[in-house]
């Protein structure tokens, strides 16, 4: 099976399971009045400070969960969220987003960007000062090469595995008034164009398949950003980036940033030891409590551009029946599952999650309808209707002599997933579905099980890398293949023509109100088709050194690396 993974989606998915920690309630979870609601959670919590007030120098140690070997983000092996965090400090990008998801051109590279009325033409005015670390200017040709390769049009054996959303909608790229103006002609309007070029590479590395596949392997040979690569230490699993003195933008406040790889369980401990300055806590109750033992710790809390859910693999026999999927949905208590994870980090244990819209966006609403709350009786009716009947005295439903047994795959060492699996196991047993928990090595979890469809149920997170709802098309639309059936990043392996049509409508929609309306319609359709069971919106909880400014829980906003610094 070919696995299509664009940077935007697969990367985050992979990061998710790994970033999620254990969960649990806390002693303070009981006081209902004190618990904030989802609406009270800020859009971002970054300790914003003026650059002038920050001291010059210092090092930030940022704990990450993966050591990257392939720094070509668009290569299949480079599709990790951590990679974006590292690369954006040393590589160009076209736009930054604020915490409401509004894009602004990132001036060191793009001075201005605009789209015409019907969305068919996008123009970037590039910053003529911008140049690669090898002295070459960054021109329209670099943008054109990236479009040609990522759209799948460049011939060659590229390890990116298919055409990427957005890039494939660009029909032609041409030079504008001079080499510092790029004109993109879209075959179909793509409303989410500012999300493209989240990492831009030099054209040599896009045009030649060998350079694409190996140029950025264990190395970042060419950079252009506020930082340059200091050291990639494979033994210590650390990447250090240092201030680039040739940088034409605002100089970085920090001398260097070290991305140090740690096991998720170990992060809180090293944070308390002051070996690191920042790490993502998520909803791991032990890490959350432990991190607060450090006297100069700040817990940053904001919404996060993702949600945790139970994936239901419709490619498996029993689950191909939408009634059985709905029965699973009704068989589990989303409230219990959300509470199990969120109580321990003093977060509203609200299972309201929208697959396409986040709680800080105005159109956020619960579309679960009749499928959101636990209803074992209804689940039993659906299963009876689907032919899975509970024989007298039996504990597991059968159909034609076969037992209704679902395999719940969990990665080893990740308590959250195991907790969810155990609760699901118990709750589904009550409606006559037997759940077997299969714990697999965490390194194989995505590659061998989830992407290949070797699971019935599993839980992880979907994270958006841009604020746009439309990027989730590849998670819920499809099938994508021409001829053979290819579900790509649609891990539920099911969809409907209606959902696909709505996505087409969505990405072409320019009226924001109507855009969100369509997004909600899609979410409703996804509940109807039982594509995954959302558990809760992911928490944006970070533990950071309290002196660290312009960094923390970023929500939907981009991290501006040159502005990160320490207060006096």
């Amino acid at each position, binding site marked *: 099976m070919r696995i299509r993974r664009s940077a935007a989606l697969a990367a985050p998915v992979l990061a998710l399971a790994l970033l999620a920690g*254990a*969960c*649990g*309630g*806390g*002693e303070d*979870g*009981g006081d209902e009045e004190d618990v904030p609601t989802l609406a009270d959670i800020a859009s971002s919590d970054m300790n914003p400070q003026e650059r002038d007030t920050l001291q010059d120098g210092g090092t930030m140690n940022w704990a990450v969960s993966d050591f990257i070997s392939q720094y070509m983000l668009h290569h299949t092996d480079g599709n990790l969220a951590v990679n974006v965090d590292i690369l954006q400090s040393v590589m160009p990008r076209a736009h930054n987003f604020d915490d409401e998801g509004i894009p602004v051109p990132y001036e060191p590279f793009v001075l201005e960007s605009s789209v015409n009325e019907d969305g068919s033409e996008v123009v970037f005015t590039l910053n003529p000062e911008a140049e690669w670390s090898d002295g070459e200017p960054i021109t329209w040709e670099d943008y054109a090469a990236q479009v040609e390769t990522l759209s799948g049009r460049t011939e060659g054996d590229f390890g990116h595995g298919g055409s990427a959303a957005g890039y494939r909608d660009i029909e032609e790229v041409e030079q504008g008034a001079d080499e510092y103006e790029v004109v993109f002609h879209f075959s179909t309007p793509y409303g989410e164009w500012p999300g493209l070029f989240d990492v831009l590479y030099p054209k040599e590395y896009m045009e030649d398949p060998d350079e694409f596949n190996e140029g950025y392997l264990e190395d970042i040979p060419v950079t252009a950003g506020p930082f340059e690569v200091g050291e990639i230490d494979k033994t210590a699993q650390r990447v250090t980036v240092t201030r680039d003195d040739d940088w034409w933008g605002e100089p970085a406040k920090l001398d260097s940033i070290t991305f140090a790889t740690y096991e998720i*369980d170990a992060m809180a401990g090293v944070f308390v030891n002051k070996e690191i300055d920042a790490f993502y806590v998520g909803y791991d*109750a*032990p890490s959350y*409590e*432990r991190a607060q033992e450090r006297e100069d710790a700040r817990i940053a809390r904001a919404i996060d551009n993702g949600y945790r859910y139970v994936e239901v693999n419709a490619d498996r026999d029993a689950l191909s029946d939408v009634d059985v999927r709905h029965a699973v949905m009704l068989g589990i*208590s989303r*409230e*219990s599952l959300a*509470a*199990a994870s969120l*109580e*321990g980090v003093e977060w509203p244990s609200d299972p309201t999650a929208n697959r396409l819209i986040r709680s800080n966006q105005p159109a956020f609403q619960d579309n679960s309808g009749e499928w959101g709350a636990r209803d074992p009786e209804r689940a039993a009716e659906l299963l009876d209707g689907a032919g899975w009947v509970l024989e007298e005295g039996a504990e597991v439903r059968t159909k034609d002599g076969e037992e209704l047994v679902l395999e719940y795959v969990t990665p*080893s*060492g990740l*308590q959250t997933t*195991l*907790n969810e*699996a*155990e*609760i699901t*196991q*118990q709750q589904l047993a009550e409606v006559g579905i037997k759940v*077997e*928990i*299969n*714990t697999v090595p965490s390194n194989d979890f995505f590659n061998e099980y989830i992407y290949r469809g070797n699971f019935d149920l599993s839980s992880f997170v979907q994270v958006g890398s841009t604020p746009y709802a439309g990027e989730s098309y590849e998670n819920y639309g499809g099938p994508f293949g021409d001829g053979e059936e290819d579900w790509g990043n649609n891990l539920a392996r099911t969809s409907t023509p209606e959902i696909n049509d709505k996505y087409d409508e969505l990405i072409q929609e320019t009226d924001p109100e109507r855009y969100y309306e369509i997004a909600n319609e899609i979410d409703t359709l996804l509940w109807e088709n039982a594509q995954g069971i959302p558990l809760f919106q992911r928490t944006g909880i970070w533990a950071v050194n309290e002196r660290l400014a312009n960094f923390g829980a970023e929500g939907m906003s981009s991290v501006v690396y040159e502005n990160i610094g320490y207060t006096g």
Partner: protein
Amino acid sequence: MSMSAERVASETETGQEGGTDETRIPGRWSVVLGTMLRQRRVLVGLAVLLLLVAAAWIGPLLSPWGFEERDYASFLRPPSPEHWLGTDNTGRDLYIITLVGLQKSIIIGLLVAVITTAVAAVVGAFAGYFLNLTDKVLMWVTDLALVLPSFLILAILFPAIRDSGWIVFVLLLAAFGWMITAKMVRGMTISLKEREYVYAARYMGVSPVRIIFRHIIPNMSSLLIVDATINVSSAIIAETSLSYFGFGVQAPDVSLGTLIALGSRQAVTHPWTFVFCTGLLIVLVMAVNLIGEGLRDALDPQSKSRRA
């Protein structure tokens, strides 16, 4: 188990007046038992073990919570009147799951120890009695099993046996625990087979297999009993560590290992999830070891404590 030939006749107890015809000869075992019970540590060990067994089997009956029950209103709460030992991450009552886990660990420990020792006795006795080819083959297998890293093998085999339940897990644990005892048994068999009663049996035409089971193995019973007892604690530790890494007992079953695995990562912040199961493991292993060492000393003529 049949009585051994080494009976110690006691003159003083024979032919008592007015007594029945029953002649009381203190068997070797009553001597051993007496010696053993005179040691305080054995008494302590036995008492603690009995207490643990009682707790594991009777304790759950006292709990207001069921084993498969979850309290969705209290996740990871400290001990309270409602949940005597607190709750875990998924709202299970720690009191009941810790005791049920203890049950599972005790059963697995005992079973593995008995099976291990039985296998060791048979393999060692056959190798030592027949020597030659039988010995070569059996010792080759033993040596092979000795050099294999058992933990790794169990981890690799685990996916294949996952669905077969914990009995298969017990067999696998036992499969990697018998080798050293088998070598000891082999050595003892080589010397035992030169004894007169073995010769006698042989000349009377008793089959070799019968001789091994009737005469050789029973004569090593002291060694085997000590070995089995000590194996109990190592089996419990092996089970616990495999379950700790997720290769052992599977949900919804629990053992002390799975509970410790859950508790260890939050031991600092939520100590009640760690302290009780770990404490029970330590007490259990110590109790078994006290008994095992007491037995060894009681059966070992060289031991000081026996003469004391």
